[in-house]
């Protein structure tokens, strides 16, 4: 991928992904594939009201049905467990797996029915009678923010979970000194990552060993901790099996409410219990929607298009309960100026509750909506000055020689060459030809536009946004771990300590360990420890695993190498410095005949203790716990923080046409430039980037959890919540650049959210360029055909009148 000479043996080379073999034959180990003896199944009773007092839940008829084991309602559950953790200091916004006393959104789970099969449980769920008393409700975020809005949690007193204004730098001074200002508003619509596998979980309680076993399709930091907390169990009584393959997540597979529900039932009934959400359970009650964010923005700039300051207000409608969703307003603080040299920023972050489904962490954790807004600002500045949009970006870019670069909110960007990649992409795409094609399409009677987005992907995720948004929260450490063992016969097993959802972590660990030890990655077994055999991990969130698990594996491998060389030095009676490592064989620098092979050293470590250095532990096992580079500090008193350590960069160029009669958008050209530092596995990085763009196309054009004004969710199935198929995703041309990070072991940065960071912004930019001749702009996503068609028709009708 890099033009630079190959520094690595296995890293960056185009190698197969070790996980793939089991998936192509249908032998993944997904949670729905796991069967426990005498396992029972859960179906759910859901609220048809956006807000209602629950007067009575009557499960008596359901209980009479054959095969039905139990009917559980919220009151019983709430009395037996701790409320689920609440990220914000809002103790009265309590959240339980089943509604307690009050239903707060359509689809919220009111009761759970346990039966011998899922089909019987569903039959019985229909017989559960729930008496409701409807209450006032609010679905729109801006309405929910108003003082007189009906509070979703009356005990909390308002719908405001977070309303904090940050000022970094001399915002008012910069605004006063700037000759030009513009303002705009736009809205990121409510969509999500919507994996094809819904969430599922199995729990089994062993009363004699006092162990709760859990198998789940989970991607979440602190999962076992949260189960133990909610279930009031010691954490060493919870065994989460991390060898479960997760069928896609991209952030949202955090089914803690589902898990606590099933754990309670398994323990109560003393039977293995499983809940596999069906698509309806998942879409309306799975608590996995994404950000829904209103932006109001003011930009201060000069006549040459240099942006001096920005005021951004972001109001997120997080749905009925807090969860971690307000933090999705926090992470973008670490890249609040994007790749641009904006000197000062005012940022008001507002999170409100409403009577909609609960949000969960979605790919990029709030950064993609923010990027959509920063990029819109760049387009607006260019349009205001009648300048080329790419030229305005170039004028504002942080330059390669300015790294490490400290942004106003206190984060230092590690490295980057933004103009370099933009130039590469412009050359590859031949921008003059792209514009010529746009004009040709326009001459044919179509609307056509070119869009740009130049965006950052903060990576190496840590939890620095937690203490920043919630000062009562003092936690900062966010490690990940790897353990390597060489057995008595000399083969290598590396252990990782989290689940994966398609990110290829086994390949990552094997490649890195292979690189360090100079041994083919295919020879290394990578296993996943369950949580009673575990080292600390914070799971694959925040584009962190190449940096964190890769770093942990590298350091553990180097410790192993050091131990083996120390044994060899002792056995050969030479100094460590006189030895050299070559593919596992240790030999003298001066005298190559003086050597020990890998197997010689293994034999000494495992069986010939008398040949070991004094006080050295026998065996060959090493481990490393990796802390986030540059991480681990609390925010300053003036709200500055080092958020994530590494910053990948991507640049999108999109040519689109729109059929003016029906509003249908079509991709004519899509080019992405991507720079995530040193690439560990090119196939994996390419796939993540292409998948991220496809997801971004969905968020920009197709996908929305749409509600009517009665609070009913209108898009609950794949018939109406539309995911991009192979027809909707164009052929994408990729241009690569490698700007290594100085903070990581190989120069790698994150790529798990790539493509998604900029695709919605670029598509919006292209569509607004296409609509310029009509004098209209689109201020919200998704830009569905109907919305575009209506806007174009209205503009044409207005034009015809004049």
């Amino acid at each position: 991928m890099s033009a630079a000479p190959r520094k690595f043996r296995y890293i960056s080379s185009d190698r197969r992904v070790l996980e793939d073999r089991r998936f192509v034959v249908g032998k993944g180990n997904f949670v729905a594939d796991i069967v426990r003896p005498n396992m029972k199944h859960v179906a759910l009773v859901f609220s048809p009201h956006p807000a209602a007092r629950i007067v009575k839940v009557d499960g008596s008829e359901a209980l009479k049905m054959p095969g039905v084991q139990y009917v559980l309602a919220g009151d019983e559950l709430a009395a037996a467990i701790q409320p689920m953790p609440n990220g914000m200091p809002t103790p009265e916004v309590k959240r339980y797996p089943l509604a307690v006393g009050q239903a707060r959104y359509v689809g919220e789970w009111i009761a759970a029915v346990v039966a011998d099969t899922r089909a019987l449980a569903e039959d019985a769920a229909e017989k559960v009678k729930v008496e409701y008393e409807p209450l006032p409700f609010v679905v729109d975020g801006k309405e929910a923010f108003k003082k007189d809005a009906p509070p979703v949690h009356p005990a909390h007193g308002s719908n405001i979970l977070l309303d904090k204004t940050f000022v970094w730098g001399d915002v008012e001074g910069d605004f006063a000194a700037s000759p030009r200002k513009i303002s705009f508003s736009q809205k990121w619509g409510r969509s999500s990552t919507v994996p094809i596998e819904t969430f599922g979980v199995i729990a089994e309680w062993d009363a004699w060993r006092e162990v709760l076993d859990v198998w789940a399709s989970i991607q979440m930091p602190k999962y076992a901790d949260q189960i133990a907390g909610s279930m009031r169990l010691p954490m060493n009584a919870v065994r989460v099996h991390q060898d479960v393959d997760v069928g896609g997540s991209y952030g949202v597979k955090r089914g803690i409410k589902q898990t606590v529900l099933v754990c309670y039932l398994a323990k109560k009934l003393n039977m293995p219990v499983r809940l596999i959400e069906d698509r309806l359970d998942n879409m309306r009650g799975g608590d996995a929607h994404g950000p829904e964010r209103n932006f109001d923005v003011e930009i201060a700039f000069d006549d040459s298009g240099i942006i001096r300051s920005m005021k951004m207000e972001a109001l997120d409608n997080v749905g009925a309960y807090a969860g971690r969703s307000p933090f999705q307003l926090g992470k973008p603080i670490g890249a609040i100026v994007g790749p641009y040299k904006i000197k000062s920023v005012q940022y008001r972050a507002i999170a409100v509750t409403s009577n909609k489904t609960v949000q969960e962490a979605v790919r990029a954790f709030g950064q993609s909506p923010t990027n959509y807004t920063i990029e819109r600002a760049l387009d607006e500045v260019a349009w205001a000055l009648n300048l080329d949009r790419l030229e305005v970006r170039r004028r504002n870019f942080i330059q390669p020689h300015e790294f490490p670069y400290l942004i106003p909110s206190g984060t230092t960007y590690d490295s980057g060459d933004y103009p370099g990649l933009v130039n590469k992409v412009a050359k590859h795409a031949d921008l003059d030809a792209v514009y010529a094609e746009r004009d040709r399409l326009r001459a044919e009677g179509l609307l056509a536009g070119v869009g740009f987005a130049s965006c950052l992907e903060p990576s190496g995720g840590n939890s620095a946004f937690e203490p920043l948004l919630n000062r009562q929260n003092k936690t900062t450490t966010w490690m990940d771990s790897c353990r390597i063992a060489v057995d008595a016969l000399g083969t290598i097993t590396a252990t990782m300590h989290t689940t994966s959802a398609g990110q290829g972590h086994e390949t990552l660990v094997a490649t890195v360990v292979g690189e360090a030890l100079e041994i083919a990655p295919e020879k290394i077994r990578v296993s996943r420890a369950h949580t009673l055999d575990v080292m600390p991990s914070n799971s694959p969130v925040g584009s962190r695993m190449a940096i964190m698990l890769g770093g942990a594996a590298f350091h553990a491998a180097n410790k192993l190498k050091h131990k083996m060389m120390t044994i060899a030095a002792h056995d050969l009676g030479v100094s460590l410095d006189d030895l050299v490592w070559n593919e596992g064989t240790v030999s003298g620098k001066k005298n190559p005949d003086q050597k020990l092979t890998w197997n010689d050293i293994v034999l000494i470590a495992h069986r010939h203790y008398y040949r070991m250095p004094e006080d050295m532990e026998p065996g060959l096992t090493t481990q490393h716990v990796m802390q986030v580079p540059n991480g681990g500090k609390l925010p300053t008193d003036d709200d500055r923080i080092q958020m994530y350590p590494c910053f990948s960069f991507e640049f999108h160029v999109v040519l689109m046409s729109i059929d003016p009669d029906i509003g249908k958008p079509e991709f004519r050209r899509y080019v992405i430039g991507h720079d995530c530092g040193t690439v560990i596995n090119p196939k994996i990085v390419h796939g993540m980037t292409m998948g991220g763009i496809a997801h971004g196309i969905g968020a920009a054009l197709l996908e929305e959890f749409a509600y009517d004004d009665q609070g009913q969710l209108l898009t609950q199935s794949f018939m109406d919540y539309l995911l991009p198929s192979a027809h909707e995703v164009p052929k994408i041309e990729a241009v690569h650049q490698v700007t290594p990070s100085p903070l990581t072991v190989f120069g790698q940065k994150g790529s798990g959210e790539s493509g998604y960071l900029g695709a919605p912004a670029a598509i919006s930019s292209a569509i607004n360029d296409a609509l310029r001749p009509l004098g209209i702009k689109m201020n919200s996503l998704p830009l569905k055909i109907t919305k575009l068609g209506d806007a174009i028709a209205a503009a044409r009708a207005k034009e015809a009148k004049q």
Partner: protein
Amino acid sequence: MRTELKINGKSHVVDVEPRKSLLDCLREDLRLVGAHAGCEHGVCGACTVIVDGTPVRSCLMLAVQAEGSEVVTIEGIAPAPGELSILQDAFCETHGMQCGFCTPGMILAAHALLRDNQEPTREEIVEAISGNICRCTGYDQIIEAVALAARRMRGRNAPDQVSA
């Protein structure tokens, strides 16, 4: 209801409720869990199996309806334990997947295409897999895998394993 199913060339007798889908029967009664439940309303294609030569949604078909038909599931594609078909190997070569959840259905859809069309264009590949949603890859490496498999199969003088 006693039902006789022929799956991957082998006969199985199962006792299923008439309302049970072929997908649930394969997964629960026969423990063939390579077909996955994604949406259970016929959109995502994760449950795709081949029935009498045609890729179908096993979530939309009842098990009892499959009596008398030849069903091929992903478990019937690999020639031998540990050995991949050309198409499966091509998916590994291009990394035509990430999480692997849609992969069995995707491979069966492509398998049916390549049986009928040895030299598919990009458009034909896109059309053939367009009923199978992949949320991870953006389809690029899947299309590449199918094209690669077609090339490799043309280079062989025998067809790929299992033609249902």
